[in-house]
């Protein structure tokens, strides 16, 4: 099969992979599970004209238009999470009790402008 085109990272706003390992932050002695998780983050541009798939607000559409007319005066809209998921963490608290806690908005699933 023809070689797949080189994967050039898209400059557009979208979720980027970010794996958080709790041992990297020195938390492995009290977090039981998970040992880490895929948190991701939003990165990329919100250029004019905002493509339909960029999940943007009306305000962002206007801002990109003004930015294209006056790049110095008006910045591009930001690329931010628009859909997140929760995770549950199992850990020991300071009294050695075992705690299972549910945390909302811990994983970035979708980004937008």
């Amino acid at each position, binding site marked *: 099969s023809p070689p797949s085109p080189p994967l050039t990272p898209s400059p557009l706003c979208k979720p980027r992979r970010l794996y958080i390992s709790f041992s990297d*932050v020195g*938390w492995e*002695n*009290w977090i*039981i*599970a*998970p040992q880490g998780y895929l948190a991701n983050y939003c990165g990329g541009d919100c250029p004019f004209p905002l493509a339909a798939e960029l999940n943007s607000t009306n305000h962002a559409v206007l801002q990109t238009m003004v930015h294209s007319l006056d790049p110095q005066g008006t910045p591009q809209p930001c690329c931010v999470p628009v*859909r*997140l*998921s*929760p*995770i*549950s*963490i*199992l*850990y*020991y*608290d*300071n*009294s*050695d*009790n*075992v*705690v*299972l*806690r*549910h*945390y*909302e908005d811990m*994983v970035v*699933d*979708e980004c937008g402008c």
Partner: protein
Amino acid sequence: PGPQERILLRSLGLSAKPSPSSPGPVPPVLWRIFHKRRTLARPGEPQSCRVEEFHVPGDIVRVFADRGRFLPEGQPPGRLCLRKLLFFNLSALEEGERLTMAQLELRFHHNSYQPASPGQVLELRLYRASPGGLPRPGRSPLVERSFVQLRKSLPLDLSAALKDGAAPGSNLALVLEISAGGDGGTPRSPCGSSDAFAATSLLLVTLGPRCRAARGRR
């Protein structure tokens, strides 16, 4: 810890980084809930602030180990098999958490396969204790029931009994009594299988301030 770590810990609802000194085994029920949530989690699927396994609202499930001690039986020997002060340090509960479920678990060393003959019935009573570790005089028991010890675990629902008492930051002291039930047990072993008693733990489900706010928003 650096300022970033403190901010991150606070966002996880922790005032400081826990440093467990002698962490015990993870209760199987918490592993089950944890793994079920991981396998069922779908991107973007907002998990509700509920603990489906217990059909109650809540986003924090804690299992507290019993720090109490066995008490002298006192009562004339023969009927009382076991008397224990149960002490749970609930200081981990934060202001703003609302208790939605409380379950005391009695664990035994092994299942009991003896046929449940009349002498095997045991009586269980659970009292609120005074700080000195004695049942508060004149108070009826929180739980009073007979049981036959067949399985390694006997759960007792204390939700109604504790709704008012386990205010965040408080400790909880109870006295557990197990007596020979029925006609006083077989002459050979009046206390039957209560000798297999191993330990107790307290499982609490609470609704934390974040989830309460989110529910309010909805």
